[in-house]
């Protein structure tokens, strides 16, 4: 793209991003807001492409727009049933803020001030002081060719390890929200897809391709954009599709095999780290073995991430089959 056309495109993309964001915030209908939010995520992924951050773009599209979107849509439909007794103020009805218009204006001014201040701070930043050079210099020793993967799995592997544990923590936290009587059930609502319907067809057709794509993303991540998180997300989507299509029920939360799958990645990662610690460097990956080690870790992580992400979208274990009444508790638990 020539310079002017590129700038024009960027300007338009910015406008679209801001518009979608505004709509996601301001649209009166909750479902509409969620749809705009998903659209917004896609636009942001495009912006990452324009910034030549393909790894981020993939992640944003898969996680930010994709999975978060599915999560939100599911939440909206459940909220509609849960709050049906006061339609007017919740999911289905228009959203009217509890704040007075004076407060809204004050908030608007404040938020604009913060945004403006940030813009000013951004513009006056000195010339880039990033770590491209340091990464480039050490890339050869990292065992992979994709600098982003090198940072994620080697230079700052500790962050990634903790991050995979944060995902797991979120899942444990989510499951801990189940009611006592629902413990041991399958997570989320049981899905009934119409046999022979679109969902079931997709559910049959897509998984093989999705599976291949996911594995490919992980494998290629060492040299090209891609990696455990992106691949894991695709695999999670595949699994979700299978479950939503009713082809296979979600495993019970008490399933030992499931639990091992959830912790396999982080555990493997820590194990490699500890082995390194015994050898002299915690999480140290000797250059000679770095690539196989990273691939091993990524394989483990992909499994755990895929399982965790899919289950995060499904929600806490609960009774009910998704068709029957999903009523609020009549008698609040005290």
């Amino acid at each position, binding site marked *: 793209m020539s310079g002017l056309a590129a*700038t024009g495109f*960027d*300007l338009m993309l910015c406008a679209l*991003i*801001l518009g979608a964001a505004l709509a996601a*915030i*301001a649209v009166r209908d*909750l479902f509409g*807001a*969620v749809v705009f*939010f998903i659209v917004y*995520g896609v636009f*942001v992924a495009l*912006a990452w492409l324009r*910034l030549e*951050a393909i790894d*981020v773009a993939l*992640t*944003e599209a898969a*996680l*930010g727009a994709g999975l978060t979107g599915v999560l*939100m849509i599911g*939440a909206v439909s*459940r*909220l509609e049933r849960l*709050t049906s007794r006061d339609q*007017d*103020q*919740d999911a289905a009805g*228009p959203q*009217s803020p*509890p704040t007075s218009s004076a407060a809204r204006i004050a*908030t*608007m001014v*404040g938020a604009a*001030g913060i*945004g*403006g201040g*940030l*813009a000013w701070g*951004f*513009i006056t*930043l000195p*010339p*880039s002081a*990033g*770590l491209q050079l340091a990464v480039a210099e050490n890339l050869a020793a990292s065992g992979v060719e994709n600098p982003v993967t090198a*940072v*994620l799995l080697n230079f*700052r592997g500790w*962050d990634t390890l903790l991050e995979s544990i944060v995902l797991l923590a*979120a899942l444990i936290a*989510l499951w801990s*929200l189940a009611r006592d009587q629902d413990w041991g059930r399958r997570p989320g609502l049981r899905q009934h897809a119409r046999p022979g319907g679109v969902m079931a067809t997709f559910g049959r057709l897509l998984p093989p391709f999705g599976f291949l794509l996911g594995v490919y993303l992980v494998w290629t991540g060492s040299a090209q954009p891609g990696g455990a998180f992106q691949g894991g997300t695709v695999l999670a989507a595949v699994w979700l599709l299978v479950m939503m299509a009713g082809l296979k029920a979600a495993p019970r939360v008490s399933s030992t095999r499931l639990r091992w799958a959830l912790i396999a990645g982080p555990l493997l990662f820590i194990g490699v780290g500890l082995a390194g610690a015994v050898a002299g460097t915690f999480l140290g990956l000797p250059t000679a073995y770095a690539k196989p080690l990273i691939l091993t870790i990524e394989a483990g992580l992909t499994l755990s991430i895929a399982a965790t992400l899919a289950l*995060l979208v499904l*929600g*806490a274990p609960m009774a009910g089959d998704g068709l029957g009444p999903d009523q*609020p*508790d009549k008698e*609040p638990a005290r």
Partner: protein
Amino acid sequence: MIASATLFGLCGAALIGLGLYGFVVQAHLLRRLIAFNIIGSGIFLLFGASGARDQLASTDPVAQALIITGIVVALAATAFGVGLVLAFAKVTGQTHLPEESDARQRPLKAGLPDRSVQTIVKDPAG
């Protein structure tokens, strides 16, 4: 001609302001989570753009890695948040928290704290 990085950085700043406004003004908990995500991606955009201003080099890989980590963490928090909202709605039938000012004042009025949920403020419009 303005560099893409500058444009998207400013866009990120605007998104942060926008999301903040949404977070404060909206009482619906799911909408707050959406606003949270918008602020988050605004931050990432600003961050990523700051690492992409040097047009000769590619976007700073460290910044990219941090952003990826950030996106995952945000998703984790969002998923848990959604679960919490659903659990709250299931127990109370509500999607709003009781007024925050009420929560601050409440202990001054009476010593019984568990009124927090019982005295849910009715939506003015409802």
